């Protein structure tokens, strides 16, 4: 679906310049197995004599637990164990960052779907029936579901309802502009909706430990949480990463991994769990629903003077990734624009709504929808083109973020905007037969050409790359070469994002061997950290490169010494080693002479600071930018929207794998489109409604627009390995705002809520 245009390395490599190494479109090694259905995912795992787990979850968003009676469940034939909070030998609480979430609810339940007990039985139906037979007496409480009311509400957690507050102040609060626009924006609850079932297998070990076979995206963190919960030393728990069927956030709900391990330890048998889609929707973290109030001041030429914002993230009942989501929301509240005065109040609060956490571009996406809405308002007020107002304010390298941090990395925002603005517009539907036009509503939908309006909208987005605010970002990798074949050992998880392909390319590039394997990840390997925020492109691929270079030196040093030249004068390609002058020519295999060479290396970028009490600090290692121009068709009577084309220009540092990069951008844009037009997990009164893919539709190929990559700006980021930037998150962040801007242009309606509901895109007939 994507079209890559123009001259440059992208087009060249697609034309097949080289088949391996950095810059080549190396295909993923597992593509064939995945296509054929032979790739083993967690749901396919099996162990001799395994038991099946089921989890009992709260039907209420807020209640006191008066009594739990497991006697009936235990008495059922085939049931091998029933566990509750009483059966947690280690830490009763867990959580990423803050341990504020109980493994099993004890006195109170704080959200619909919170785990209360778990069962292991010899048949999955028995396990589910037994879970249903557990008697829980609740005293139902009024849930806190309006985040604005969380401040004054009774604390729903001992840690209080305010998870974090960041007041950012930058510049002069008294500054005023000649024009002022205000807006109120809402962003709904997007589910990461990993397509493969959430599943896992726990196998007890003879030494009293346990192995967890799960689709973890952060195996070491999951192991540590599990070990603490099980009351075991970390080395007694091993997490083995199984095939990950897609992940755009923290994939697995730890509410499942922990009971699984506890049940395996209790019964001494392997225990398997496969979540239903409903459980998946209830259990894992969602994108933070957000409420945003904005006031933009600008001068008469449309140059921004001051941005004031209030941002309220609904964290659900537990902290999870809310603190870092809030930091991103506050820091990027004004977007990739130069603003001399910025004042933001950001809060993340607890509610009894479904849990929020890490989903690609958290924090940054919500504010993008709002600040870009403001830019459109400003343009309308000043009578300027929306792209022009943006152009007058774009950020560049050397400018300051509202956090006081100087942008030191490439920030080609103006160039990106120009690229999408100047790109040709897609044609209008044509052809004699109107019934064949693809209109809003689909091929056989109700669309009527006379009621369709086309709109064009722009958005600029930014995200940070790597964890922020002092997170120790480090990864370790090992490279081995033997018999002319290289192996990479790194616990960075391949989630479908392409890390293993990239690792192979890096080794191919450095060692000149084509045959590179990447071993599956587990916690016996050194930690590589979470698969999030483009980390593995930076730290893990960086570690692989260093390790490969060390191997290269070990390989070439003896040769260089023998021939009296420096290692730098030797090159390796296609398994052959040659000297610059062509005098020396041998092969890698010959040089190795049956030996194995190993090296292990780490990559750890420069440290960052936590935002201080004024929201100031050098919190980010790197930034990535994107410009999107959306073209939509809107049926202004039915309010149905079809995204016709999204033209993308992105700041990528360097193209490492053109095809993979295009796929990442397409995927990101499509996820953003879901947020823009259809995805919102509804939970009125805290109770999740229709937790299935009929009630929560995802974009399909027919919903997805043409994703047209009009420009990839390759300005290398000198501090990043290969100069490359992470590419997946920023299109997710930017696409929803661009679609909203286009619907605004088509309808003249304010469009201040995501996803855009049909009623917001209807133009009422003038009477």
């Amino acid at each position, binding site marked *: 679906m994507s079209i890559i245009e123009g001259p440059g390395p992208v087009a060249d490599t697609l034309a097949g310049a080289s088949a391996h190494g950095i810059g080549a479109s190396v295909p993923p090694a597992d593509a064939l197995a995945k296509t054929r259905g032979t790739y083993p*995912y967690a*749901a396919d795992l099996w162990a001799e004599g395994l038991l099946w787990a089921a989890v009992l979850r709260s039907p209420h968003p807020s209640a006191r637990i008066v009594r739990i009676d497991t006697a009936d469940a235990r008495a059922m034939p085939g049931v091998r164990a029933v566990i509750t909070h009483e059966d947690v030998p280690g830490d009763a609480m867990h959580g990423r960052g803050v341990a504020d979430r109980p493994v099993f609810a004890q006195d109170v339940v704080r959200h619909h779907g919170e785990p209360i007990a778990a069962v292991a039985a010899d*048949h*999955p*139906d028995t396990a*589910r029936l037994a879970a249903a037979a557990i008697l829980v007496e609740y005293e139902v409480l009024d849930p806190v579901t309006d985040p604005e009311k969380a401040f004054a509400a009774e604390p729903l957690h001992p840690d209080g309802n305010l998870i974090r507050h960041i007041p950012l102040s930058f510049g002069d609060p008294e500054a005023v502009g000649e024009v002022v626009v205000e807006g109120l924006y809402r962003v709904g609850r997007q589910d990461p909706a990993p397509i*493969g*079932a959430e*599943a896992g297998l726990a196998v007890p070990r003879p030494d009293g430990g346990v192995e967890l076979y799960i689709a973890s995206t952060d195996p070491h963190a999951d192991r540590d949480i599990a070990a603490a919960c099980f009351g075991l030393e970390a080395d007694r728990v091993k997490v083995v990463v199984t095939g990950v069927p897609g992940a755009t956030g923290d994939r697995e709900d730890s509410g499942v991994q922990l009971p699984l391990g506890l049940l395996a330890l209790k019964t001494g048998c392997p225990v398997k769990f*496969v979540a*239903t*889609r*409903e459980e998946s929707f209830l259990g894992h973290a969602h994108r933070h629903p957000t409420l945003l109030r904005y006031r933009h001041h600008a001068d008469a030429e449309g140059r921004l003077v001051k941005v004031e914002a209030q941002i309220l993230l609904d964290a659900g009942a537990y902290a999870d990734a809310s603190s870092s989501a809030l930091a991103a929301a506050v820091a990027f509240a004004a977007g990739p624009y130069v603003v001399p005065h910025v004042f933001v109040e950001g809060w993340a609060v607890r509610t009894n709504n479904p849990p929020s956490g890490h989903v690609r571009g958290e924090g940054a996406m919500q504010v993008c929808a709002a600040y870009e809405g403001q830019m459109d308002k400003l343009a309308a007020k000043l009578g300027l083109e929306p792209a022009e107002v943006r152009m007058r304010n774009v950020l560049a390298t050397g400018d300051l973020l509202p956090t006081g941090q100087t942008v030191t990395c490439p920030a080609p925002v103006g160039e990106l905007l120009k690229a999408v603005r100047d790109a040709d517009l897609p044609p209008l539907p044509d052809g004699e037969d109107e019934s064949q036009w*693809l209109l*809003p*509503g*689909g*091929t*056989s*939908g*109700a669309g*009527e050409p006379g*009621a369709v309006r086309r709109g064009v909208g722009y958005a600029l987005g930014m995200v940070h790359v790597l964890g922020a605010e002092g997170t120790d970002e480090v990864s370790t990798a090992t490279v081995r070469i033997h018999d002319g074949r290289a192996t990479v050992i790194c616990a960075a998880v391949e989630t479908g994002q392409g890390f293993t392909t990239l690792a192979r390319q890096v080794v191919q590039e450095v060692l000149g061997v084509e045959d590179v394997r990447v071993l599956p990840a587990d916690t016996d390997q050194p930690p590589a950290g979470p698969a999030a925020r483009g980390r593995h492109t930076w730290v893990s691929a960086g570690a692989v490169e260093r390790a490969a270079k060390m191997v290269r030196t070990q390989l070439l040093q003896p040769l260089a010494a023998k021939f009296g030249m420096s290692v730098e004068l030797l090159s390796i390609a296609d398994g052959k080693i040659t000297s610059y002058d062509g005098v020396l020519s041998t092969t890698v295999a010959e040089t190795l002479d049956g030996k194995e060479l190993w090296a292990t290396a780490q990559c750890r970028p420069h440290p960052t600071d936590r935002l201080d009490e004024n929201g100031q600090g050098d919190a980010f290692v790197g930034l990535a930018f994107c410009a999107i121009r959306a073209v939509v068709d809107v049926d202004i*009577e*039915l*309010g*149905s*929207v*079809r*995204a016709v084309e999204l033209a993308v220009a992105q700041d990528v540092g360097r193209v490492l794998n053109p095809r993979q990069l295009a796929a990442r951008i397409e995927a990101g844009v499509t996820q953003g489109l879901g947020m823009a*037009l*259809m995805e919102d997990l509804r939970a009125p009164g805290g109770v999740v409604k229709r937790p*299935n893919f*009929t009630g929560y*539709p995802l*974009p*399909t*190929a*027919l*919903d997805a627009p043409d994703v047209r990559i009009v420009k990839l700006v390759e300005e290398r980021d000198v501090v990043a390995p290969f100069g490359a930037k992470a590419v997946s998150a920023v299109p997710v962040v930017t696409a929803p705002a661009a679609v909203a801007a286009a619907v605004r242009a088509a309808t003249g309606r304010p469009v201040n809520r995501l996803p855009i509901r*049909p*009623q917001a895109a*209807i133009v009422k007939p003038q009477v």
Partner: protein
Amino acid sequence: MSTYAGQAAEHVTLPSSLDEAVEALAAMPSAVPVAGGTDLMAAVNSGLLRPAALVGLGRISEIRGWQYADGAALLGAGLTHARMGRPDFAALIPALAAAARSAGPPQIRNAGTLGGNIATAAPTGDALPVLAALEASVILAGPEGDRELPVSHLLTGMDPLRPGELLAFVRIPLLHAPQTFLKATGRTGPGRAVASVALVVDPARRQVRCSVGAVAPVPLRPLEAEQWVAGLIDWDGERSLAPEACTAFGEYVAAACIPDQPGVELPPAAVQLRRTVAALSRRALGRALA
């Protein structure tokens, strides 16, 4: 993914004729018929249903096609949506073909059947408003022989399927006049109807029949609006209508299907739905009389 062996039914029968199927059901009263499985297996996978035995209808060739009988078409209950969507079928019953083309993604339409759509009787069943507008009848095969009844009697539960009965055929009058089916889903890709409108012109009976799907548990027929608009049409002439009449018809249909509640203001969602139904009905009539 969650269809593990333990959930599959113990007994599966695959009869090759209707009679055999009826016998199989009679022999195993706990057995459930399955056609394409697109509704049934979803219920099994989510744990809502654990059929003890299945009678598969996929091999009964007599219900997988259609035949003609006295100015009507006799459609087999095993016709798939994909088959009904093809041009030859569309030439016969355009509105049903349009509904079939919109009934889910291609994988589902290749398997899902007309009979399954009727038996499931979901509010969003796309064939249902079309059958209601066409005043179709269903022929049921059972242990006591066949019987025929209006599809609306089946859908409303007035005269439900009896134990051991199978949907065998659907009788549809051939009208040789324009008919339309329009569906609003709120998205561009395949989706369930938010509202749908089937509208058929019946020149022989000088009727316009319209049925609105997805807004109520069963398809609704706005009879007064139908009669009103039929009265405006010059049946011996061009059969065209002024745009204002189409608009008024749309409003009429929408108000009939989503009525005002005395003393209370219509909630925003209902207002939006009414607007959608009005636009769909207006467009449907406009296209039928174009």
